């Protein structure tokens, strides 16, 4: 074997031997790290999911133009032409008051309500679908709303920009909260490895002492602890991925049923393989960091006599 690799292989064997010596203690530690990491991971997936679902809804921002009752056919046609020629408008669809009522009647739970009406209270309407997506669509919708409100023969204009913006702001809050949570729980992971490694150093005090007396370098003594910290982080990360994926599968059947009512697929997605790998590497590095801090703090206290 390569002379440079051999010490590392040896430390790795060392770490594996420690794992074999106390598998349940190791498993408990891995689970703690797993749960700690599962929290921000699931929160991240939830926010990403809401973002994805609303993104698909927002793909066609709309402006609904409700006509005043008794507007003449020619005025209505002129309005349609005007809407179609406005920049940013992709399609214009006419919804007659009768069609709107029929539509309402078919909505679940609404037919009884509609049956109590003496005559149709709904106005004729044009629904303009806008071309742009995202924030610029919201701007277009708002501008259009202001222009149209000034025209005669129009009862009400409703742009969907307001809720889009509100949701966007809410998502930003969610993202920040996830970041904060991830930061705090990363600290927790570092603290967990710090403490675990401290206990290991204490239980292996004699071995460390004797090794130093026999001529062990500091690097030799430290290396297995770094491996252990890395293992804790990576195995904990893997446990977190499994926990979150299990939760996702359990919740998805409920979400699918719920989504059916709206004709949308609400099922949660998972991390891409690249993201999952990055997550594992991140957890591994946090584990090594915890080990590094612990080793620097506690190993110098052991001075053989």
């Amino acid at each position, binding site marked *: 074997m390569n002379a440079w690799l*051999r*010490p590392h292989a040896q430390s790795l064997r060392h770490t594996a031997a420690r794992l074999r010596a106390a598998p349940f203690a190791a498993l408990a530690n891995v689970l703690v790290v797993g749960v700690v990491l599962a929290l921000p991971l699931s929160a991240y997936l939830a926010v990403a999911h809401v973002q994805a679902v609303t993104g698909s809804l927002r793909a066609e921002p709309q402006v609904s133009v409700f006509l005043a009752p008794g507007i003449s056919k020619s005025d209505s046609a002129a309005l349609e032409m005007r809407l179609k020629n406005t920049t940013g408008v992709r399609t214009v669809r006419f919804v007659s008051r009768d069609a709107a009522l029929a539509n309402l009647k078919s909505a679940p739970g609404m037919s009884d309500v509609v049956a109590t009406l003496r005559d149709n209270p709904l106005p004729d309407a044009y629904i303009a679908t806008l071309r742009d997506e995202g924030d610029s669509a919201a701007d277009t919708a708002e501008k259009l709303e202001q222009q149209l409100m000034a025209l005669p023969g129009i009862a009400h204009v409703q742009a969907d920009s307001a809720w889009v913006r509100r949701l966007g702001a809410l998502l930003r809050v969610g993202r920040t909260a996830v970041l904060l949570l991830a930061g705090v729980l990363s600290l927790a992971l570092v603290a967990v490895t710090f403490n675990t490694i401290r206990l290991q150093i204490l239980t292996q005090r*004699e071995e460390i002492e004797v090794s130093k007396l*026999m*001529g*062990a*370098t500091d690097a*030799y003594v430290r290396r297995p602890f770094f491996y252990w910290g890395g293992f804790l982080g990576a195995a904990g990360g893997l446990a977190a991925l499994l926990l979150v994926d299990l939760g996702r599968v359990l919740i998805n059947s409920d979400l699918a049923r719920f989504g059916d009512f709206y004709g949308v697929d609400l099922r949660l997605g998972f991390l891409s393989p690249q993201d999952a790998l990055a997550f594992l590497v991140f957890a591994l590095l946090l584990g090594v960091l915890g080990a590094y801090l612990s080793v620097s703090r506690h190993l110098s206290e052991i001075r053989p006599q």
Partner: protein
Amino acid sequence: MTQAAISFSSVSKRYPGGREALSGIDFSIQPGEFVLLTGHSGAGKSTLLKLIPAIERASSGTILVNGQNVSALNARGVPFLRRNLGLIFQDQKLLFDRSVLDNVMLPLQLTSQPWRDAQRRARAALDKVGLLERERANPVALSGGEQQRLCIARAVVNRPAILIADEPTASLDDEYADIIMDMFQSFNRVGVTVLVATHDLDLVRRRHPRLIALENGRLAGDGPLAADAAAFDRSSADAAPSQAAPGPA
């Protein structure tokens, strides 16, 4: 003149709090010598031995080991100094969480020797001290004398040029202590420099070693044991109770 294996010149050791454990120690040990370090308890034997592998550092003076200046050695150099020394400690420092063989393999693992070579050399060392058939046992299951032999196997597995032992026969009965001393002498015959601290001079009288005597941290004598100086006699008087005590073996 050949380079000394160990040389002390005006070495003093003062512990924090002001107690002076050693003062103005001067001596030199040539390669291949067999030297006993003696003195009553508290005379500074253990402190002197701990200065050689830099477990303790001298307050002043110069210590050379195989030409290497231990007094000027920084922390990074210490492990490499220790790898060239065979150390046997008063409190043995065996690890009871692993087998006899694994205890002997420890010094070899530090230098990342291939596992098979390490195992072969560890077995050879165990064979030299007559413990080969106990390689799978836990050190806890060994008798006091066997544990001491295990310490010797661990100390010589790296084939050090210098062997240093602190009271290796303290807890053994005379017969067993004699066997241990025979082992040191056989290593000495193949060229290893041996430095043993003991207060049990009767045990070694017939071996005619060179004797370095300490008294209250100062050098009280340096010469062949046959000289039988007064300081040495007092040392052997100190040793009497431990000789009478029954050995654990």
